[in-house]
């Protein structure tokens, strides 16, 4: 298999350039921003691993540390709200590196005029999901800005967890032949938020998949080296996660269109709006790379949990083509799955 040359574009950040919405898409521009502006300055051994959570050796413990900010619009959507999202998002970033979430901090940026009842509802759902996962919100901050300087409420959460897996999960441990599993249907969160946001003249029963993955993934932690790597495919969808793996390890990835779990309603929204379901954000799914012989046990463990009942193998790591993700389509043809360009849905999380 050969790959034809890829067109390239302006590599340097130019003087006149400004931040665009697409810099927050989780796609090409996000990566450019991190690689050209942030890593050259902050870069260190831990940050350069670019995992969902930083793993820090603090003898005798391995700790996981992660932070994320939430700006979703609308702040309430079917299946969740900005508060639930802010806590589950950080819990999931810790869980996918094999950590048990222990404590979380939260920072609120509140717009003048936000009803206290709204804030109350958001805080309730944060506390509920933290309790369910068995972690506590132990530090916080509130700032208020004048009307128009923020959109109702933005939340930052930071989480600290303790690594509980027998062997550390790392992108470096992935080998050709490893299988790729997704823990359920893809694109649900982005599609549900999109429908809620646009007030589309279509009725759907779509709800966001926003959920804490800790209890689901915890069941895999005794499997040791058989689990190579996990990631929750949020912004940029599973296309971004798979491209990151293919790029950083210089393997190829083959996924099979027929095996992709996609709800018919998500498919419908994608057809209507020209979205690719592979590019849509998820907030309660994990991509798991596992050794070929462990696939059956992984699937059976995942399927015991309600959040994992639609888990399936969607592809595998292949030696070629280097650094590329491709899909075997239903017609038996192949097509490249690239990082999303631009941002079809800004402020999705």
């Amino acid at each position, binding site marked *: 298999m*050969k*790959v034809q040359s890829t*067109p*390239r574009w302006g590599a340097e950040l130019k003087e006149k350039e400004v931040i665009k919405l697409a810099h927050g898409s989780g796609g090409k521009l996000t990566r450019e921003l991190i690689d050209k502006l942030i890593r050259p300055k902050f870069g260190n051994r831990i940050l350069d691993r670019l995992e969902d959570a930083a793993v820090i050796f603090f003898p005798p413990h391995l700790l996981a540390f992660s932070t994320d900010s939430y700006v979703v619009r609308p702040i309430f959507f079917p299946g969740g709200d900005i508060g639930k999202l802010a806590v589950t998002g950080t819990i999931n970033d810790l869980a996918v590196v094999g950590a048990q979430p222990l404590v979380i901090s939260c920072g609120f940026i509140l717009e003048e005029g936000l009803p206290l009842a709204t804030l109350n509802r958001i805080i309730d759902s944060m506390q509920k999901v933290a309790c369910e996962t068995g972690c506590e919100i132990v530090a916080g901050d509130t700032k208020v800005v004048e009307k128009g300087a923020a959109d109702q409420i933005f939340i930052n959460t930071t989480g600290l967890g303790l690594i509980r897996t027998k062997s550390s999960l790392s992108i470096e441990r992935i080998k050709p032949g490893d299988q790729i599993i997704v823990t359920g249907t893809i694109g649900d969160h982005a599609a549900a938020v999109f429908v809620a946001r646009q007030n589309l003249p279509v009725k759907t029963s779509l709800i966001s998949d926003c959920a804490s993955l800790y209890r689901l993934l915890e069941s895999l932690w005794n499997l040791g080296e058989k689990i190579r790597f996990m990631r929750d495919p949020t912004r940029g969808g599973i296309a971004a996660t798979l491209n990151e793996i293919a790029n950083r390890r210089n393997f190829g990835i083959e996924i099979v269109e027929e095996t992709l779990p996609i709800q018919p309603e998500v498919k419908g929204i994608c057809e209507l709006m020209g979205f690719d379901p592979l590019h849509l954000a998820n907030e309660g799914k994990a991509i798991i790379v596992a050794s070929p012989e462990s696939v059956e046990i992984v699937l059976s463990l995942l399927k015991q949990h309600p959040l994992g009942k639609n888990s399936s193998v969607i592809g595998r790591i292949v030696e070629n083509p280097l650094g*590329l993700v491709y899909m075997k*389509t239903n*017609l038996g043809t*192949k*097509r490249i799955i690239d990082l999303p360009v631009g941002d079809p849905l800004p402020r999705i999380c």
Partner: protein
Amino acid sequence: MNEPEKEKIKALIFCVKSLCHRLPEPVNLMEVCGTHTVAIYRSGIKQILCHKTRLISGPGCPVCVTPNELVDKAIWYALQSHTIVATFGDMFKVPGSYSSLAEAKTKGGKVQLTYSPLEALELAKRNPEERVVFLGVGFETTAPLVASAILKAKEHNLSNFMVLCGHKTIPQALEKIANNPFLNLQGLILPGHVSCIIGKNPYEFLAQDCNLRGVISGFEPGDILESICLLYKQIVEGRCEIEVQYRRAVSPEGNQEALAVLERVFTSSDSEWRGLGIIANSGLSIREEFSNWDADLVYPAQIGKPIQHKGCICGAVITGLKEPEECSLFGDTCNPEHPVGPCMVSSEGTCGTHFLYQAREIENESPVHP
């Protein structure tokens, strides 16, 4: 895909392959619509066709055929005080002569993205102190929605809503394409959603007068394969007809209700298409009765003479005369993040599609067999 669907796809691939070998000579087929172009690349259909078939992308992307002048006008509106431009998202980044709506927004212009003209109408209701100019771009698929928005605006006597009308109709443009000797087309894959509105009849002249066959096609990979089969069959059997593959949604007469709304609000007029020039009766203008909602009449934009970008060959790409890769800007100066021409901006533009899918196509070691 369930088993019967799989069997159907297998049968279609077999049919395409065997008919392809029976073609008397190489053929040029055009998929008129950008939605088809994207579906063809996403499903890898070109990998199934034999070397005797060339698929050419046509002018059916509304963003791509919109001339700079309309974009320039929209930008002018966006920069006026007490004026909001409401537009479908795909026009937001399209460069006009000097800038785009996206750039106008960073300079403080008011631009609101909408998914329906009725949303723009609501925006006007909520902001009585602002003018809301809706950028009406699109073919027969979107024009009925804009027409009903204008009808509603009249019903509610809403004077701060207006439409900058750039709507176009497909059949007239195809006449120009059909008569272009450089293209040498043997068949058209026609857009199914346009025919949901206009039906099959407006295309009959292509077969009768221009000797160009066509199949009105759905957008699933199976639909497109079946349409290619139908075109091959016509060629092999020496027939020249307009057929409907998308029978589940298209009737010969079209959607009478939508056509009535179109007829009520719009009248046909000459219209400028990027790459094709001015085509007689290929545009929709707002009827005099509704002139209070026609932005060009109520509040004409004051813009200079539109200019074209140096080196950009979008015009030739739209008409199928050149491939995006033949453009010296393609992939280098012009890419989806920094588009120079409209064909790169639109997710259904030929250049954007080629950039995303074709430029990085995997060469198969072995061809795909059914």
